[in-house]
């Protein structure tokens, strides 16, 4: 039975749900309840199930759904997605809903304000199902660094869902939500998308407001959509994107239509499009099954009219090093505010009579932050220290310039660049937990886009032969040309779905009873 005619509303795409709402075939309350039921069935907790959610707001979501249905009944829907439910990564401030960033230090914190993107989805009428799990403060590539236990990959519950936004990707892959918001600092939307068989977009830096996004590395962070189809990402991107006067780094110019670009791409014609395959993002250390699926997808694109060239971006080999200096440096400063004075956890040091503010800060930060966060704070503190600044932080900022120049040169030749999104498919939980460097290598292909501020999208391109797990194809475009991602991404998706005879996620295991 095809997804479009399934009676299970959770199997539909967001665009299909929107159409059904508009046609009066379903109500938002029915849609929302169906997803809440699915969450109850498969999500479970830290011990069992997908564990994509840290907080589910059934009552709130249903209230928003009822309001949406009333608007529709009155003939006043607020937009295409009014009534379609959504999940939000726990790094985005939600007024009245707990926001923990996956950290013990923020356990129980309820923000008194909404992030701009959250305000926009509320204003557009999307009921918020809850907050999704993540690596603590978005530091990680597996969601194992969450203080509240890992999220599991719906394709194999013993494997990681990627990170840091593993919760959002897994929720969408497990049909617990049709749409989710993620954030991407070095690949935290795209890499989870790749390993869970979902679509994830990191927009141009400045394309979506960061106001209310708890910063990891301010000059790299972007909010973006996590969905099951390229068109759904485009729909959500148009809801949350655009200039925000509360974010000084927000771009103040009109957005091209992403939805139109996605619809055009779905026509499967890539005539006149030149794509560049990045030679530095393949080869040794890359899983053969990942490269095989990627290469096949590129062949399909050629058959659909695309011209393919190989492009060299020589500075990309230094991207990881630059990233692991810039990110900890900015993060060490961002996380200084978690000091037990104004909000969050306060831990009194043991055996100290009348401890001082400084002692309480130190004890709280030791107890409240996990290992990976401490590692990166120390590293960032080091990189910014006088005496090391020029050699590390300063130099990393120069490498950033070189990477931008590589992109400029490449986009002088081609319309979009391509690579596999991640070097491997989903690895097993615990496999890389004690080897930070191995973990960092997951973001090899996604990091350059963050350093240069250009947009990137990951779209599923099949299952690796050796493990039967999803592989992602990454599309990169010049800054502000996010529409190219949607056109090319939708074309790849349409070509491959046709070949597969259905969506890739239809092949994922049934999760019924996973929560037990």
């Amino acid at each position, binding site marked *: 039975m095809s997804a479009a005619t399934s009676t299970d509303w959770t199997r539909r795409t967001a665009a299909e749900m929107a159409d059904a709402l508009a046609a009066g075939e379903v109500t938002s309350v029915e849609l929302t309840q169906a997803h809440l039921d699915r969450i109850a069935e498969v999500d479970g907790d830290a011990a069992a199930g997908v564990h994509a959610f840290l907080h589910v707001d059934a009552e709130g979501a249903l209230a928003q759904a009822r309001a949406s249905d009333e608007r529709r009944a009155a003939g006043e829907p607020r937009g295409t997605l009014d009534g379609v439910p959504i999940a939000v990564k726990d790094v985005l401030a939600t007024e009245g809903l707990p926001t923990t960033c996956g950290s013990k230090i923020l356990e129980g914190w309820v923000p008194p304000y909404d*992030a701009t993107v959250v305000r926009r989805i509320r204003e557009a009428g999307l009921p918020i199902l809850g907050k999704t799990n993540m690596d603590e403060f978005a530091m990680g590539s597996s969601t194992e660094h969450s203080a509240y236990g890992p999220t599991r990959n719906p394709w194999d519950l013993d494997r990681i869902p990627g990170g840091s936004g593993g919760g959002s990707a897994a929720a969408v892959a497990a049909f617990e939500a049709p749409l989710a918001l993620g954030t991407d600092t070095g690949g935290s939307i795209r890499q989870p998308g790749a390993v869970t068989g979902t679509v994830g977009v990191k927009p141009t830096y400045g394309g979506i407001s960061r106001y209310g996004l708890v*910063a990891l590395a301010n000059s790299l962070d972007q909010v973006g959509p996590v969905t099951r189809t390229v068109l759904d990402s485009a729909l959500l991107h148009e809801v949350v994107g655009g200039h925000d006067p509360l974010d*000084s780094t927000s771009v103040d110019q009109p957005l091209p239509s992403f939805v139109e670009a996605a619809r055009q791409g779905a026509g499967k014609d890539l005539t006149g499009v030149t794509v560049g395959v990045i030679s530095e993002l393949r080869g040794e250390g890359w899983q053969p099954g990942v490269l095989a699926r990627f290469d096949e997808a590129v062949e399909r694109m050629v058959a659909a009219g695309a011209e393919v060239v190989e492009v060299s971006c020589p500075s990309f080999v230094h991207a990881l090093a630059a990233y692991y200096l810039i990110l900890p440096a*900015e993060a060490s400063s961002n996380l200084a505010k978690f000091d037990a004075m104004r909000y969050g956890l306060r831990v009194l040091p043991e055996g100290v009579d009348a401890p001082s503010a400084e002692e309480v800060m130190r004890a709280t930060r030791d107890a409240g932050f996990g290992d990976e966060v401490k590692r990166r704070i120390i590293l960032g503190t080091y990189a910014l220290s*006088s005496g090391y600044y020029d050699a590390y932080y300063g130099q990393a900022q120069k490498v950033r310039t070189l990477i931008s120049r590589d992109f400029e040169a490449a986009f002088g030749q081609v319309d979009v660049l391509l690579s596999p999104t991640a070097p491997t498919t989903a690895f097993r939980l615990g496999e890389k937990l004690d080897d930070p460097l191995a973990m960092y290598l997951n973001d090899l292909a996604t990091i350059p886009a963050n350093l240069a501020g250009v947009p990137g999208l990951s779209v599923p391109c099949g299952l690796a032969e050796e493990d039967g797990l999803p592989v992602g194809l990454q599309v990169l475009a010049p800054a502000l040309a996010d529409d190219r991602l949607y056109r090319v991404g939708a074309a790849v998706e349409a070509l491959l779905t046709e070949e597969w005879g259905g969506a890739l996620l239809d092949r994922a295991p049934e999760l019924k009873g996973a929560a037990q």
Partner: protein
Amino acid sequence: MSAQTVDLLSFEETLEKYDPALGLEVHVELSTLTKMFCGCPTEFGAEPNTQVCPTCLGLPGAMPVVNRKAVEGAIRIGLALNCQIADWCRFARKNYFYPDMPKNFQTSQYDEPIAFEGWMDVALEGEDGEPETFRVVIERAHMEEDTGKTLHVGGATGRIHGADYSLVDYNRAGIPLIEIVTKPIRGAGERAPEVAKAYVAQLRELIVALGVSDARMDQGSIRADVNLSLAPRGSNVLGTRTETKNVNSLRSVERAVRYEMRRHAAVLSSGGSILQETRHWHEDTGITTSGREKSDAEDYRYFPEPDLVPVAPSREWVEELRGTLPENPTQKRARLQAEWGFSDLEMRDTVGAGALLLIERTVAAGTAPQAARKWWLGEMARRANETGTEIDALGVTPEQVAAVQALVDAGTLNDKLARQVFDGLLAGEGTPDEIVAARGLAIVSDEGALSAAVDHAIAANPDVADKIRDGKVAAAGALIGAVMKEMRGQADAARVRELILEKLA
């Protein structure tokens, strides 16, 4: 806190042995309507934590946006100090942990200040009494944000040391500050304390004239930190410096410099060495005490603020702002001196007392310059001195002084009664007219009452009356005193004298 007394060298001996090097860091709180990076109001004295938002509270996720008006204020201050204005500059994070600072970093400027390389000619009294200027070179003026205010609870003193815990109000956190830093000021010698005071006074005058801040030292909207070091006389080698924080009156700037010069000299001349540290100024005792040890290697881990984009003022914008600058203070002083007919000495005292703008406003409200000067430098200066405040912080406005003087000019009040009107103004009893009415202060011009009082005085002092009848007119003073006493001062002394002489002719 140990308020240890330290032996000081005499000022004279200090100068025989050492040359002082001064450095002044002045923080000016801008009087913008909103904070540096958010739309919260900046009004002084609001209920605690009522002028806060996610940004200035440092809540997770909140972001800063620069206040255009604050940038304009910074540029105008820079231009008025003859600085260059940067083509391109950035904000940086100064990282250190402190509970009054919500983000645990201060958003400030580091190696790219908005204004740099300026100067100010400070007016001093020359040796021969002639006016003289001393050029203070400005290193930079940069933009930053203020911290919250902390109340210390418990312990003996209510001060930070010995407190049990503290209470923080973040209303002040994020208010725009302009930090103005001088280059080391050398060669001032014995005049170092005077130069320091005159610089801050003149800077304050400039800030007020620019209209960018109310520059109230008593409310902390302008705060001076005094850096001082000594070099052996004739040597070029700068000694270790101390930084005396938050010296909050003009008089204290002078006193703090003098005190630190003498303290450094005492330590150095007895073979000791100066600790590089911050010092606290104690207004009541006139001494400084040891604060935080400060090393040059203090690691603030500055880096460009990634949530803000660079400020690149166009040359057109800068020139437009230059066009809004008030008259140059030196020229303005010369013009006012000519207009008012003040002697050099009178003018210098006026500037030194920080009364120039007050007198200007009083004159503008209709008072003769000498009368305005008399009130501000006499009565108001005395009251300020007694209460340890600045004359512009007394609570009497130039317009009120002008209203009182108008009553004197009209013959309603004499100077003695006028002083009582000022008492009433300070006690908040209303306008000068209301106070005159309520206190019954007006001069009695009722001839009958006056004549009766003169008769009483003559009757009570027959000996004095006889002397006057014998032609000793000077003795009338005693009778006038008696009449004034009976009239509770509310009589025109000249008229009383006339009446006495008429009656005893």
